[in-house]
């Protein structure tokens, strides 16, 4: 037996790179996450449950954008439109067509994906700043349709949504666990985060396999990628389909949870938030998208809850100085700037540094 026994912490062959959970700690981590997922809804009150449901929904949208921006290098400010398509899709497929649960979600996500695919060709023709502003145009057109296509979207006043997440008698809004009825928010917390896990793993699998590498090749040098046989048309459009599908899925979940959607929901600010999430979380890392989404959705709420002890800040602005929301808005700006300047790879990189430190302990390199 050689001294070089197989160490799971070291990557010694290519197959190791492809494995889903590379090491013992990663496997333990996965188990831990499942445990948290099981426990958290029981520990959180309705409010924090709501916050984490929105964080989960945002995570799905952010994963989608990361596939496009992080892996393929295409920046889009139109993400909110696809999110909106998914939301209205849920209203139409579930409420008007009466499709049952998994079907309305799949249908809504598919419509988002198809429309995203139609936007793909623009990306083949344009790059950089110009592509960004084209996607801004897409957003403006999308909003116009949301506001004016009244028969489909309910127009300016929006539409109520009933899209239920229920298979047979199993309704997420009315789960019971061991005889204890769960609240709607608790049920959705379980469901949404199960979806995050599912879609996160799916994205992870795409990213670490052939299509993922193709996308990254396009991101790094599109011409070179083409030369080695990676079809730009194929993969760029594919990335748009995938990313928009994720956004639409998130939007459909949002509609189902919020039960009311209006054109105001799908604003430029939402698109910006998605970009900020992947920047803060980590461009090109699937779990980074989740970290970023959770961080940016929960941080304002955390700041609100500690605002009582902050100077110059009051909850309602009556005491003079900043309101919490102003602080949060400014902080959103400051945070994204700070991350871009000082930690461009985001929270994911910070996490990696921490784990690397422990992996190589006691050596500091």
């Amino acid at each position, binding site marked *: 037996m050689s001294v070089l026994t197989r160490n799971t912490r070291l990557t010694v062959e290519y197959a190791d790179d492809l494995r889903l959970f590379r090491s013992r700690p990663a496997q333990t981590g996965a188990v831990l996450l499942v445990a948290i997922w099981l426990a958290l809804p029981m520990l959180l009150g309705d409010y924090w449950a709501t916050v984490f449901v929105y964080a989960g929904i945002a995570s799905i949208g952010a994963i989608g954008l990361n596939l496009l921006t992080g892996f393929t290098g295409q920046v889009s400010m139109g993400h909110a439109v696809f999110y909106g398509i998914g939301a209205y899709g849920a209203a139409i497929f579930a409420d008007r067509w009466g499709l049952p649960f998994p079907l309305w979600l799949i249908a809504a996500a598919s419509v988002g994906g198809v429309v995203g695919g139609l936007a793909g060709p623009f990306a083949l023709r344009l790059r950089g700043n110009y592509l960004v502003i084209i996607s801004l145009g897409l957003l403006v057109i999308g909003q116009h349709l949301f506001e004016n296509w009244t028969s489909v979207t309910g127009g300016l006043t929006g539409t109520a949504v009933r899209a239920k997440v229920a298979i047979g008698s199993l309704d997420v809004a009315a789960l019971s666990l061991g005889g204890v009825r769960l609240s709607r928010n608790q049920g959705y917390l379980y469901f949404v985060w199960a979806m995050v896990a599912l879609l996160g793993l799916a994205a992870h699998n795409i990213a670490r396999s052939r299509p993922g590498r193709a996308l990254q090749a396009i991101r790094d040098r599109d011409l070179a990628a083409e030369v080695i046989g990676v079809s730009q048309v194929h993969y760029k459009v594919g990335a748009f389909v995938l990313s928009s599908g994720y956004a639409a899925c998130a939007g459909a979940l949002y509609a189902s949870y919020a039960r009311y959607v209006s054109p105001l929901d799908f604003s430029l600010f939402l698109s910006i938030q998605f970009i900020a999430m992947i920047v803060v979380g980590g461009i090109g890392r699937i779990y980074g998208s989740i970290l970023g989404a959770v961080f940016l959705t929960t941080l304002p709420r955390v700041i609100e809850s500690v605002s009582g002890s902050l100077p110059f800040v009051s909850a309602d602005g009556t005491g003079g100085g900043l309101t919490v929301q102003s602080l949060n808005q400014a902080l959103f700006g400051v945070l994204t700037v700070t991350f*871009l300047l000082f930690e461009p790879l985001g929270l994911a990189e910070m996490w990696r540094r921490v784990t690397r430190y422990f992996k190589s302990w006691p050596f500091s390199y």
Partner: protein
Amino acid sequence: MTDFAQYLLAGLALGSVYSLICLAFVVVYRATGVVNFSQGGLVVFGAYATYQLIAWRVPFVLAVALAALVTAAVGMLIERLVLRRLVGQPVFASILITLGVLFVLEQLCTTLWGYNLRILGDPWGVRTLALAGVTIKVVDLWTIAASAAALIGFFLGFRYSRLGIAMRAAASDPEAALAHGVSPQMIQGIAWGMAGILAVVAGVFIASGSRGVDLTVSAVALRAFPAAILGGLDSTEGAVAGGLIVGLVEVMSAAYLTPNAPWLGSNVHVVIPYILMIAVMLVRPYGLFGTAEVRRA
């Protein structure tokens, strides 16, 4: 016919405001390669600053000049503190950072001036002239004149002044420029200062008369985006041409499209400039006047 002339004038005036904002986009883009999403924040800050100075009984022209100075300083400060660190960052970085700056600027304004509508107190008010049945708003004449002056100024400045030549040099080849003693950093600072000055001029025209200043003034920058792209992000002539085209298209579609094609939905004039922009982009990916980027694979 009178109506058409009236619309034409309105379109030119609106286009001139867009031109001023687009010029600011172009100046910053040429010097730094950054699309400046925070321009709206500078516009609203500039308008508030002018309002404040007028409220302090500073004569109007002086108030605008002082506000321009202050806003230019704010622009340069932004460049110095934030944008300078951005060299070599990807596209989304510059977008997010300037958006971050926009949010901070907006919150700065509401913290300083609150949320109430403030009447600017400019000398034009709602005065008008009449010419062959067409009403000419005095403020519109000044708007058009200002953007024409800005265009000529930039055109001559870039071509003949030392600073302009230095700016062009730094934009086309920073290293070579550096070797000739041009500091790209100084150039970038100056570009942001100019963006601040242009913002004040645009802000004053937007908020003049009975419109007043409030946070919504900053939204004009988003409306001007298609104009900047249409003209080409790196062309001063393009900025003015794009601004005028979008101004005219917007007013004309509100005038003729909205009443005649109700199936397009209400307020289609908001969307048409973007559709026009996308159409032009597909034919000319770098705008009407922009320079195509030469890339090495």
